């Protein structure tokens, strides 16, 4: 799967080069792959690129895990208690729709400068898709399993662990896949609101400098990280569902 994904990636690169070459796209609009690669190598040699990647990766992983765990738990609560869900919905939508840039100073005020506000931001955007997936998975899941749990008088934890989580897993994983893409965006925003390291920071310096190669290069790095996340989720999906996916 990974191999084939890489094949697709190479195809994209070829297409990209072709577009740049055929249409003679100037590099301030869309630099070619080689140009971007050169800039990446340059950054690697001069700008401690790896350290920046490490910083961002740490933030993403921490935020993603936090958001996923809270999302799953909230999903369970919301699916069981629709009133709580309705009650929380406006707040959640507030957090999701309010432009992060607008609330950034507040986040800094409450959480201080450093990785925390970034992690929280990533957790916030991760939370929503995971929670939605969980709620749907539980709400529209097989009714007969609910009967079984009721007859066996399973504790909330037992029915969550043995019945609800497995049956909601496809929807939750779909939510997590969506969350990966949002997490990448949040990582950038988080670093835009005040940072001096990380991929998002390098990206904003590229923007400030109208250096499209750096922008595209950083976008590409983030995409690759996102893709890696996505593949991990796919792996979990295939591992866990392959057994009972009936097709």
């Amino acid at each position, binding site marked *: 799967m990974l191999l084939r994904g890489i094949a697709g990636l190479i195809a994209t690169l070829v297409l990209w080069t072709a577009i740049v070459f055929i249409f003679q796209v100037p590099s301030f609009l869309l630099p070619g792959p080689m140009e971007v690669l050169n800039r990446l190598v340059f950054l690697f040699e001069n700008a401690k690129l790896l350290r920046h990647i490490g910083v961002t990766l740490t933030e993403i992983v921490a935020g993603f895990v936090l958001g996923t765990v809270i999302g799953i738990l909230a999903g369970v609560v919301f699916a069981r208690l629709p009133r709580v869900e309705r009650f929380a919905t406006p707040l959640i939508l507030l957090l999701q729709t309010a432009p992060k840039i607008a609330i950034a100073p507040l986040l800094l005020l409450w959480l201080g400068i450093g990785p925390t506000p970034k992690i929280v931001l990533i957790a916030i955007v991760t939370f929503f898709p995971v929670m939605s997936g969980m709620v749907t998975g539980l709400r529209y899941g097989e009714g*007969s399993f609910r*009967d079984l749990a*009721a007859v*066996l008088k399973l504790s909330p934890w037992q029915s969550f662990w043995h019945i609800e989580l*497995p049956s909601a897993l496809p929807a939750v994983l779909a939510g997590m896949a969506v969350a990966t893409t949002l997490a990448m965006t949040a990582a950038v925003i988080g670093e835009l609101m005040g940072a001096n390291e990380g991929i998002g920071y390098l990206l904003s310096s590229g923007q400030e400098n109208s250096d499209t190669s750096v922008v595209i290069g950083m976008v590409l790095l983030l995409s690759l990280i996102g893709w890696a996340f996505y593949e991990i989720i796919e792996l979990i999906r295939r591992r866990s569902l392959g057994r*009972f996916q*009936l097709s």
Partner: protein
Amino acid sequence: MEFLVSQSERMIDIAGVHKTFVADHGTVTALEPVSITIKEGEFISIVGPSGCGKSTLLRLISGLDQASGGSIKLDVSGRKRPVGFVFQEPVLLPWKTIIDNVRFPLDTSGVSRAQGDKTALDLIKMVGLAGFEKALPRQLSGGMRQRAAIARALSDDPPILLMDEPFSAVDLLTRDNLNDELLRIWQSTGKTILLVTHSVEEAAYLADRVMVMTARPGKLKCIHNVELPRPRGEETKLDPAYHALVAQLRRDLRTPAGEAH
């Protein structure tokens, strides 16, 4: 019909229970008021035309659904899981193997894995699924799935067992065997069993009492005491009293003319 059972002997007390479903296409009276007292250790069979409320009654007793009126009392003080339920369609967790499915009630009630495996393997053997312990439900035939569900319902030894057409998808021979196994288990454990079936032979062969229901609206038509001696076996099936009862049940089901035509 016994109306005088000592308080302690009463296991299930159903008084004026009825159920109406409200659906888009109108309300459906699934069950008109039913009253019956079931003693501890009794074996009750329920027969009746399709759609007469048999499953509904079992669901009400198990507490899965709420009655529209009337009261149901179970005398199962202290038991965490008073009822075992064999659903009309086998409800197996598709992501668990057969042995995991059968052991599931034990796993979730704190029984040790080793103990659970032992019980589960015995039951799997009993229902004729030896060799399929590690199979997933989708790899079994319809009848095999149903048998796995039966094994699961028995695994944690509930005092009350509700079985909704448990043997409808298995062949005659297996069915006979399972009937005898069920009787054996019932006799050795003293469970209270309610079994829904479309086979009047099965109903008569197994039960202490047979409830006959009628359709549209579903209601309890009559209850037959089965006076056949215990333990039952091949001789029972030769007993003229047995055949008389079967014939009587057939007649009961035939009049008033059933709903299908």
